[in-house]
Structure formats: C-alpha cells, structure tokens
C-alpha cells in the first residue's frame, strides 16, 4: 500500500521506540490502542445508506486523521437481459482523493484504488455475507447494491477505516419495499383478449386485472408502495465484517499505525472477522502485506489475538451504530410526533 516515504534514520527511530520497554509511540498510545474514531451515519441524502468516518482527528484543531466517506446505492437490474444476478449482487468501489495522497502520481493513485477495491470487493461480495433481501422478482429483477467508498484523507490505517465505514454504511442501508404486479386476461374470455381490454370493460367481471395477490411465481413487474419510511433494513446487518491490521515488528505487533509507523513496519497482517449473532465467528479474509516471514506457531497466536481485537472493535462499532440509529430514527420520529 502507499506509504509516506520516510528516511532510514526515522524508520529505525520509530522501530526502536516501538520495541522499547515500555513501548513508546509518538501520540502516547499503547501498542494496542486505536485512535479516536468519529462516526456519523446518514451523511449523503441521495444514497440509500451512508457514513462518514474519521480516525484520529485532533479535537482541538478540528483537523487531521484518516477520513472516509462511504455510501450505498441501490439500482434495479434486469436478470434476463441486463447484467443482473438472481438474488441481487454487491459491487464495491474505492476511490482515493488525490489530496489524500499528494505524493502519488495519478497512475500510482489508480493502482492504489484498484488494490483497495479488490480487497474490499472480494471480502464484502462473498456469498457467505450476501444479504437475502436483494431480490425483487425471482429470475427477473434484482437490486444491484453498489458500495462506494472515498478516502478523503489518509493519516494511516486506511484499510481498517475503510472496512469500518463500509460496515456502517451497509448497516444504515434501507431497501425500498416492492410489491410484484401482473396483468391478467379475463377469465373465460377469448384467448387473444389482453389485459388492457379487460380493464376497460366494466362488464368484464368482478376481478380487477390489476391484482397483487399471490403473484410471487409469475409476476411480470413490481411497484414501489408508498410508505412512510425508506424501506426495510438490509439483511445481514450483524454479518458485515470488521478488519484489524496487525503491524508486525518481530517480537511484538501494534494496531492502528499512523502513516509514519506504517512506513516502518515491515510486515502487515490483515485479518477480517465477521461476528454473526448466534453463529460462530468466521474469518472472512486474511492477507499478508509486505515482505517477511512468519512462523506457523506465531501465526496461530496472531490469529487468536486478532480475533480478540476485532471483537472489541466490533462491539464498540455496534454500540455506536445503535446509538446513531436511535439518534436518527427514534428521536427523529419523536420530534416529528411533537410537531
């Protein structure tokens, strides 16, 4: 990944202070501390779900930190003629603002975008995480869920932040309610009488041509019923994974590296866990970035540690997301009722 270029002396300085006893970091954190994370959902009014995440903003100056904007958008796709897949599909795209990586040329930026997109897309679009309410009409229409993430500023550990922002945006996503509809010819009428005629003729029978009952099997199209809320929540809220990056510095490892620390850790281990409720924890993705080797025994303990950190992160994120939900939905409803 793109790391700020730091000098050899600076790298050694950072490495030796991280390995010192007790370990020292420039911002006074311990090795396993995360920076403060700010999260807000519902930031893009035109998206179906969105979140803005900042990691490490300095509270006095109101700036700095890794900043991610994530939004999901739903589009209808035709399964028969278009590129749709029965049951819906998820596409994930990461865009990096040139202001986040001022040292990179536009080609290098494209490569970085591609790398990040691959990691995110491969993990989030996996069938194990697929939400079950993305289909509209079986074998006919389905939703395309596009998750767009933008890195507005990078002050280190962009991957953890990206996964967190993606999880928040997906958690916030509402799928519009749909109702299948179909046109029917008049019963007992001529075989070539079409639905429009049947509808126009008042003597055609008691049954309306426009019937929405029991049509799951052979519905032709769907409609969006007018309803007061934006739809039902996207399925699989609890399954969306969180990612922890373990920066390995042989005897120890540390979490949430800043840009300069990222540049001085030779190997990074990327672990993505999903914590579905009432199901066992699953490891969704694992990547080793950088050059170096790891002993198998070491790997096992790192995995166990990683799961612990990821669980803490997951619980903190879950609490915040529920908080946001209360702020935006329950309180807003109360305010509306007060008027």
């Amino acid at each position, binding site marked *: 990944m793109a790391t700020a270029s730091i000098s050899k002396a600076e790298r050694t300085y950072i490495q030796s202070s991280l390995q010192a006893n007790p370990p020292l970091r420039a911002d006074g954190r311990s090795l396993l501390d995360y920076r403060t994370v700010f999260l807000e959902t519902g930031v893009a009014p035109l998206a179906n779900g969105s979140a803005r995440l900042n990691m490490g903003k300095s509270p006095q100056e109101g700036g*700095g930190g890794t900043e991610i904007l994530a*939004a999901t*958008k739903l589009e209808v796709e035709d399964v028969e003629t278009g590129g749709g897949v029965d049951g819906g599909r998820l596409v994930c795209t990461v865009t990096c*603002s040139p202001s986040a990586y*001022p040292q990179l040329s536009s080609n290098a930026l494209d490569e970085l975008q591609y790398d990040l997109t691959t990691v995110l897309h491969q993990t989030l679009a996996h069938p194990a995480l697929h939400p079950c309410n993305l289909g509209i009409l079986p074998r006919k229409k389905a939703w395309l869920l596009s998750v767009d993430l933008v890195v*507005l500023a990078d002050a280190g550990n962009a991957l953890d932040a990206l996964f967190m922002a993606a999880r928040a945006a997906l958690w916030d996503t509402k799928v519009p309610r749909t109702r299948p509809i179909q046109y029917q010819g008049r019963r007992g009428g001529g075989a070539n009488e079409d639905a429009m005629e049947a509808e126009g003729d008042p003597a055609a029978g008691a049954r309306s041509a426009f019937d929405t009952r029991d049509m799951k099997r052979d519905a032709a199209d769907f409609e969006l019923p007018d309803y007061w809320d934006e739809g039902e929540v996207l399925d699989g809220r609890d399954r969306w994974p969180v990612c922890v990056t373990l920066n390995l510095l042989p005897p120890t490892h540390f979490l949430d590296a800043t840009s300069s620390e990222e540049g001085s850790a030779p190997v990074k281990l990327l672990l993505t866990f999903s914590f579905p409720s009432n199901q066992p924890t699953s490891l969704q993705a694992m990547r080793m970035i950088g050059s170096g080797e790891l002993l198998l025994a070491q790997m096992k303990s790192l995995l166990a540690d990683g799961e612990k950190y990821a669980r803490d992160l997951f619980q903190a994120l879950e609490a915040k997301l529920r908080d946001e939900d209360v702020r935006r939905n329950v309180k807003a409803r109360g305010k509306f009722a007060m008027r």
Partner: protein
Amino acid sequence: MSSRVEILNDGGYRSDGRRQYELRDISIDTSQQGSADGCCTLRHGLTEVLVTIFGPREAKMRSQTLHDRAVINVEVNVLPFSTGERRRRARADRRILELAATIKSTFEPVVQTALYPRSQVDIYVQVLQQDGGLLHACVNATTLALICAGIPMTDFVCAVSGGVHSTEPLLDLTMLEENDLPHMTVAVMPRTGKVTLVALETRLHVDRFAEIFKLAGEAGQALHKEMKRAVRNRTSRLVDAMETSMKQPVGGERDVVMEDRMDF
C-alpha cells in the same frame, strides 16, 4: 399542468420557498483536512464541494513547469453518489475536464502566479453533493481554500448563477430550475468589479442578458461579505491560538527541571 412543479408561483415564491433574488444558505468550513495546505468545505443549499489546495510546490512533472510563473493544476472528482442516479464518471470525462478547465481559467488572472516561478499549485475539487450551481460552488470554495493556503491573490472571486423564467430573473438556481431554465454563471471580483468568468451553456435572450449579468454582479457582493466573514473568523481563531501559546511558554517548567539537574 398541475402535477408539474411551478418554477415561480403567483405569489413570487420559487419551488423551495425562496424569493426571486434570494440565495440559498451557505455554510463554510475551513478546518484542516489531512496534509493539505488549504481546504474548504462549502455547502450551498444542498450542493456540497470540498476543495483542497497543495502548493505552491515543486511540480511532479518538471516538464510542465513554466520559468516565469506558477502553473495551476485543477483536478475535479465527482463522487458517484452525489446525484440521484448513480453514475461513475471517469477522471477523463469531458464534462469534468471542462469544469476543471473553467475553474483553472477563472483563477489564472487572479492568483499572483508570477511570485512563484517554476512551481505548481494543485487544486483538488471533490463534489460531494449536487443540487444545481455546481460551478459557482466550486469557484467560491476554491477562492476560500486558496486564501486559507495563503496563496496571494489580487481579490476574492465570488460566483453566482442566474437564470430567467419567462421575463423574471432568478438567482442561485437549484437542479430543478437549472433543468428547465436558461441560466448562466458569473464570477466577479468584488473590489474591482471585474468579471473573471461568464459561463452560459443554454440559449438566453439578448435583452435578458444584461439584467441577469448586473444582478449576478450585485449578488457577488453579498457573497463576498459572507466569504470575508468566514476568512476573518478563521484568522482571528488562528491569532487567538497564537496568543495563548505565547502567554504560556512551553519551555517554562522544563527550565526549572534543567536547573535542578545542574545542581548535581
């Protein structure tokens, strides 16, 4: 006809409840973003843009530099979820390149590029949300970001869009109005009254042009006040921060410790 949204109703109100010459509310945030030299998030109604400035700095490609002045480089990125319909625009999209070129030519006469020969000023524009008046939001945000970056300019550049509904001029159009009306964007330099940008993409009756042009000039003055206030606020905050740090010298306590050690 009744189902259509009325652009300007009999009472003189527009679809979003504004009067003819009323501008949408503006919010300006000039807090630091990453490692940028200057940045500004400007929200104009529902249109939101984020501009970051880097420079003047050494150009990434030396071949593009000029020996007597700085080069201004503008890159625009429109986020896929900024409009109602999701649409990915490539960076080389014609529409985006045109927007970037317009911003560049607007600022070339205003930024004192001659002070920084052989260098480059990068202007990165992120369009976060669109609801009409994209160009003028970009221009206003760029002005503020350049000021925050401390790049010398001869004046502010304040832009506003104007359109005409039958014979009634309107200011600061929303997306809905932009789609239906002939409109143009004018950028003025409020102190000198000079105009650095007039962009007209639709057909406009020649008799109406002068009227809108004059109105937009006056609206530019109003915007100038708002932008100046934002700059003043930011500067006074900076001055305050400097003063508090001057009053409490950081080295004060440490000096005592040093003296203690000297006793050994």
